[in-house]
């Protein structure tokens, strides 16, 4: 069932944003419920713009945003939203000379956690959640790329936010860390609204009950991962030879060619589609328009 924009905890109504001649977002309507919503889309689809507007960092040219009933256009309500917000931007830099704990403590103050003891507990908590408790005194410059990404996630988790916006959180994480990240998101207390932007369709399939596909600034799909996969039903085949009519084809680990398209190659077997197949077909359709 599609959530209602006006009654959902987080709603975007006719959201548009233009950068020069580029229409980054075009009349986006979206309702985000508690739990994880995966946001899929190619580079330049408008995902980061959408997330930055949700994070109250950016303002739309048109349309309305509502976060827990609050309107970010009003200064006082914007601060209220930010108090319930955890945000991990794409390509986050770090204060490299800070220690891990020092950085989190500083961010906790910026999140208005002013009580020292509560701040220390909160820092310890998020460090444990991301598995960096042994690195509290390490300078950020000494951390690996994956550890820094976990630190970025940790800062977003400070204060147990009601709205967690994660832009490419799994970039730079190794497979084990990605699995730990899925475990982490799944186990977050308080049932927050989580928006997860990623290029990893398997992350979406694994942990997101809902997925939104954003293409060329417009929402092209809202549904469950299974529904996204189902959009490719009857259009994905496996064959020994590469066919010429596929929108996309590649040789898989079983040494057979996987074809996505409207016409099957000769001798092909119809196979069950994945989220990735559905997403790729949506992208192809949008490009063809």
């Amino acid at each position: 069932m599609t959530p209602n924009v006006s009654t959902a905890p987080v709603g975007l109504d006719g959201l548009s944003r233009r950068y020069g001649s580029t229409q980054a977002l075009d009349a986006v309507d979206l309702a985000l419920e508690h739990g994880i919503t995966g946001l899929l889309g190619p580079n330049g689809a408008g995902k980061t713009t959408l997330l930055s507007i949700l994070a109250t960092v950016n303002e739309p040219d048109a349309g309305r945003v509502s976060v827990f009933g609050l309107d970010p256009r009003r200064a006082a309500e914007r601060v209220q939203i930010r108090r319930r917000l955890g945000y991990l931007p794409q390509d986050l830099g770090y204060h490299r000379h800070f220690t891990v704990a020092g950085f989190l403590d500083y961010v906790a103050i910026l999140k208005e956690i002013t009580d020292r003891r509560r701040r220390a507990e909160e820092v310890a908590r998020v460090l444990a959640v991301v598995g960096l408790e042994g690195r509290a005194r390490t300078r950020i410059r000494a951390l690996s790329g994956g550890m820094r990404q976990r630190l970025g996630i940790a800062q977003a988790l400070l204060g147990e936010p009601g709205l967690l916006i994660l832009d490419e959180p799994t970039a730079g994480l190794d497979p084990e860390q990605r699995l730990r990240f899925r475990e982490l998101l799944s186990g977050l207390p308080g049932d927050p609204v989580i928006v997860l932007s990623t290029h990893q369709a398997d992350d979406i399939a694994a942990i997101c009950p809902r997925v939104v596909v954003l293409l060329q600034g417009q929402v092209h799909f809202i549904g469950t991962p299974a529904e996204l996969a189902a959009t490719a039903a009857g259009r994905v085949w496996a064959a020994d030879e590469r066919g010429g009519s596929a929108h996309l084809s590649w040789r898989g680990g079983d040494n057979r060619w996987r074809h996505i398209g409207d016409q099957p190659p000769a001798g092909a077997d119809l196979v069950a589609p994945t989220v990735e197949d559905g997403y790729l077909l949506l992208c192809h359709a949008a490009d063809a328009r």
Partner: protein
Amino acid sequence: MSARTVLALARVEAWLLVRSVLVLAGMLAGAVVIWFLIRPTEPLWWRADWRIGGGQLVLGMAVLAAAQLNAGRPRRDAMAELYASFPATAGTRTLAHLIGLAGAVPAGLLLLGAAAVVIQLSGAVGSASIAVLAGGLLLVIAAGAAGVAIGVRFAHPLAGVLGALALFISSATTHLASGGGIWLLPWEVFQDDLSQLPGRLTGYPPAGAHAAELAGLAALAAIVALAVTIAGGRSRARLALAGVVAVAVICLAGVLQGRPLPTAELNHLVTEIADPASAQDCVTASQARYCLYPGFGRDLPSLRDPVNGVLAHLPARPAQPLTIRQAALPSLDGTFTHGHPDQQIARWNTQLQAAPGDATTASAVYLSVGSWPAAGGQLADARFDVALAAADWAVRLPFPVASGQPCVALDQAREAIAIWLAILATRPAGSELQAGLNGSGGGFTATEVSNTMVRTWNYPGISAGYLTGATPQLTAAGYLLASAMTRLPEQKVSRVLAGAWSTWLNWHTGDARLAAALGIAMPSVPGLPGLAGPAGNAPQNPVCTS
């Protein structure tokens, strides 16, 4: 804007400044600057407290750069977008950065305290001015506020470096300002007139008004920093109002600093200098009279010892007693006299020209106020200079000045005797004396007397200006003979001198005669490569003939 958030952030920012390598380096560099500014000179509080500000200027430059780095940190570290999502706004952070400048205060206080202790332990004359010292601290804070204002707008570290450079240049270009205008600069480091004052002069420098100016500048920089980051019409209106107040304070402080010094103060100063007897305390010891401005009694032992050393070796003393007297500022420049009528200034300068330190007599030695070194090799040089001046008095070597040229005791035994007396009284290192035969560039020094080039000898400390007025130009022959005399038994030399004292004092008695009386060969003077003949139209030095 939550006060708790501001204070919690400010605590972090202050701690970052306390631990900043830049601030630490600035403090050390400031200490080095203060050391170099105060070490070679007599510790006078009315000069030293202002020079401590010179070190605070260096610390301020470092604090400016550090504050700029801290304020520009989110943008420089690509975290501006994340910071923009926090409930603590950019204005909150800026305010925290400004309050966090308290983290630079310990460095300023440490610098100030250490310098004050060193100055006080070296026997400082006078007492420190709280307004001047507070001004130095305010300079550090104002520089930090400027750093924050730059940092919130320009994140690149070069912006802070340029800001620090601008601060330095603005304080090092005093020649572009005149009169009271020099005090409008952040800190006038090279104000040398303070060195020549016999005591603190009220309103010079105008420390209270300057501190107010610096406070106004700090406030203005803070307001600019907040205006860049705070949104909202009402907040901006309040900031604009505060900015107007800050500008008014700066203007008022500027006007106060530009005010002429009170006529009564300058009259008093001129009287103190032109008629030192009216202000100085005099002490007589071993028939020598020492007259010093109040507070300078610390110099007495180091003056008395070399003079007594000379007196102890004299077969007979001159009829006129010797007076050792301090002399001060020979003229008043525009930083003192701005705003006063030209006729009044001319009157003051006429009075000063009649001051005894600028005239020459055969019975007085004049010391430049503020130039008497505290310790070390310079004190040894200064002691030798006083001993030599006392010895010149003892052998009646006059100090006449003709056409600005000191006289030369050419081939006069009394010159060697005077040098010998000074060496006996102070025992300087032989190598230092020997170095006086060569110029600073390693070449020979010479002067023209009676159309002949004469090899000269420069005694230690000759160019340091410990004494005012002209002293005779000494010859290499005189020094070499004196040096040979020091290798003879002291009793033997004393006996020879006492046997014909009046003869030796006669300016016609030559070096060779003295050498013969002592039973030694006249030392040969090294030649003058390239300087064999007269130097053409160059002014000639007269022979000391009285």
